[in-house]
C-alpha cells in the first residue's frame, strides 16, 4: 500500500514542464529588457524617484 502511494509521487514530468516554462518566461523577459529599442525609455524610468517629488514626468 505504502509502495503504491509513494509511486504516485513520481511527478518527474511536472518538474521538466516547470523548468521549460520557467526558461521560456525568463528568455522572454531578457528579450524585453535588453531590446535596444527600450534603452532611452529605461533611462527615463530610472530617474523617476529622483524627479522632484511634485514634478510630473513628461
Amino acid at each position, binding site marked *: 500500500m*505504502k509502495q503504491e502511494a509513494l509511486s504516485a509521487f513520481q511527478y518527474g514530468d511536472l*518538474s521538466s514542464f516547470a523548468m521549460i516554462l520557467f526558461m521560456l518566461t525568463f528568455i522572454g523577459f531578457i528579450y524585453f529588457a535588453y531590446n535596444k529599442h527600450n534603452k532611452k525609455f529605461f533611462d527615463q524610468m530610472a530617474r523617476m524617484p529622483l524627479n522632484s517629488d*511634485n514634478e510630473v514626468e513628461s
Partner: protein
Amino acid sequence: MSEATGGPLLNETYDDKIVKAFTLATLVFGLVAFIVGLLAALQLAYWPFNFNLEWLTFGRIRPLHTNAAIFAFAGNAIFAGIYHSSQRLLKTRMFNDTLSWAHFWGWQAIILAAAISLPLGFSQSKEYAELEWPIDIAITVVWVIFAVNFFGTLIRRREKHMYVAIWFYIATIITVAVLHIFNSLEVPVGMMQSYPVWAGIQDALVQWWYGHNAVAFFLTTPFLGLMYYYVPKASGRPIYSYRLSIIHFWALVFIYIWAGPHHLLNTALPDWAQTLGMVFSLMLWAPSWGGMINGLLTLRGAWHLLRTDPIVKFLITAVTFYGMSTFEGPLLSIKSVSSLAHYTDWIIGHVHGGALGWNGFLTFGMLYFLIPKLWNTKLYSMKLATTHFWIGLTGILLYYISMMASGLTQGLMWQAINDKGQLIYPDFVQTVTEIVPLYWVRAAGGLLFIAGFLIMLYNVYMTIQSAPAEEKAEAVTAPVHPKDGRHTGDGGHRKLEGMVITFSILSFLAIAVGSVIEIYPTLSLHKYIDKNAMVEPWTPLEQAGRDIYVKEGCYVCHSQMIRKLPFDVIRFGEASTIEESIYNRPFQWGSKRTGPDLARVGGKYPHLWHLRHMNNPRDLVEASLMPRYPWLEKKKIDFYSLRRKFSVMQSLGVPYGDETVANADKIAEEEAITLAAELTKEIQAAGGSVPENLERTQITALIAYLQALGQKGKK
C-alpha cells in the same frame, strides 16, 4: 504634461500624516519585537528567565517575538515606505483617507490582539501563522482594505508608468493575500481554537510554501521595492540598471514561490517535491544577486557617501546583507548542507542576517531619511546615527557568528558516529550544554542591536522636537487623467508597465504556476493512500494532550520528524513516514531541535519520568534548559470540547467512528482515570506524593500524547 494629453491639471497634497503614523508604529513595535527577542535569547542561555510563568515561557515568547518582528516592525515599516513612495511615484494622494486610517488602526489592533493572545497560548503552532482564526479573518479584512486603497491609488495615478518599486508592491499585495488565505484555511473548534483543513504532509507543504514566501513576499519583495526607491533617493543617483531590475523582478517573483520545500529536505516529503524545492532555491541565487548588484552599484561614482552619510551606510549595508542571506539560502537548500544545518541554530543565524541586517538596516536607513522630511526639519544628529550604525552592525555580527558556530557545533555533534557505527554524543543534552556559552554571546549581540536602536529613538525624538509647529503638506500638480499605456503606442514591457490590471494578473500567474504544480499533487494524496491501512488516529485523551502540546508551543524546541539520515535514525529510531502524521492538525514536524526529536518518544520512559520532567526537567536531566511546566498539574483538561473537536476531525476525513465522536469526552475521562491510576502506582512505588486530581489535570493528557508518539503505526 499639457491638457491635451492628460486633461486639466489638478493640485492636491500628499497624505503624509498616515506615513508618520506608520513610521511611529514601526519604532514602537521595533522596540517591543527586539526586547521580546532578547528575552527569548536569554531564556535559552539561562532557563530561569522563563520565570515559571506560563505566559512567559519560551514556547509562547518565541512566536510573540517572530510575529512582532515580522508583522509589527517590518509590517509597519513596509506600510510607511509604501504609502510615502507610492504617492510620490504615482503623483497622487492615496486613493482614500478613510481606507488609509482603517488600514492603520486595523493593523495595530491585530498586533495588539496578537500580543495578548500569543502569551495566553492561543496558537496554531504553525510558524509565522500562529495567530488564531478570528485574527486570521481580521488580517484578511485589513489586507483587502490595503489592497483596495493601493490599487485605487494606482488607478487614479497621474503618472503614466509604474516605476519598478511599484511592481514589487503589487506582487507583495497579491501574493501575501494568496498565501495567507490558503495557509489559514481552518475550521474553528472554539472561540480561539481551530484545526487546519490540511493535515500532516499537506499541512507541512502548505505551511512551508507559506512560511518561505512570508520571507519572500513580506520581507523581501516589499523591501526590494523600498530599496529601488530609497537607495536612489538617498544617494541622488538613478538605479544602476533598470533592465536588470526588470529581470530581477520577474525572475524573483516566478522562482521564489517554488522554494518552500527546502524547509523539508530529507524528511518524509516526496523526493520530487524536495528536488523541486532545492533546484529552484539554487536558481534564486541569480536574481537575488542581480538585485543586490543593482542596489550596490547605484552608488557608482559616489562611493564617498558610504563614508560620510549614515543613511547610505545603513541602506548599502542592508543590501549587502541581502546579498549574503540570499547566497546562504540557496547553499542551505542543498540537500547535503541541509542535512547538517537543518534543525540547528545556523538557520536562526541565517534568518537574523536577513531580518536584522537586511530588513532592520533598510528600515533604519529609510526612517533616518524619511523622518526629517516628514517633520520638515533636519536630523538631530548625524553622528548619533553613525554610532547607531556601528553598534548595530557589531550586534548583528556577534549574533550571526555565534549562531553559525552554535549551529555547526550542534550539526556536527549530532552527526558524529564512531567506527562501530555508534553515536559519539548519544546524550542529546551534551549537544545542548556545548552551545550555551554561544547563547550568551548571541544575547550580547541582541543587546547591542537594541542599544543602537535606543540611540535611534533618542535621535528621532530630538528630531521631532525640533520640527516647526506648523505642519506643511507637500503638494503635487499633475493632469487629472491617468494615462493608460494602451493609448500610447509603447511596446512590450513598456506597455505592460502602464497597465495595472494586466500587470497584476501576470504577477499573479507567475506565483500561481509554482504554487499549483507544487501543492496540487500533495493535496490529492488521499486518492492514493488507504487511510485505514495505516496508523490509528489519536484517542480522545491523546488528542486533548496534543492540543496542550500545540498550545504550549513545544514545536519551538522539538521536532517530530526523524529524517531519512543514518545519524537521525540511529539517534531517534526509524525515519518518520508520511502515514504517521497524516491525521495531525496542525502538523508538528518542527524546524528546530533545541531539544531532541519527539516523534518516537512514546514508551521510552515511564509515565512518572514525564510527570517529573515536565514539572522540572532539571530533576532528571541536570543540564537541561527546557522550561518548567508546573501549571500542567493544576489546570484542568477540557473534556467538554472533545466531542466538537472529534466531529470536526471526522468531517475532515479522520476515520473516527460515530460512537467515538459521540462519546469522545467520556472516553477521554476513562482513559485519564486509567492513566492516572498507572501513574499513581508508579509514584507510590517510588515513594513520592501523588498530585491531586491527576485524572483531571492537563499533565495526564499530555503524558498520554507523549506516550503515544511513534506508537501508532505499530502492528
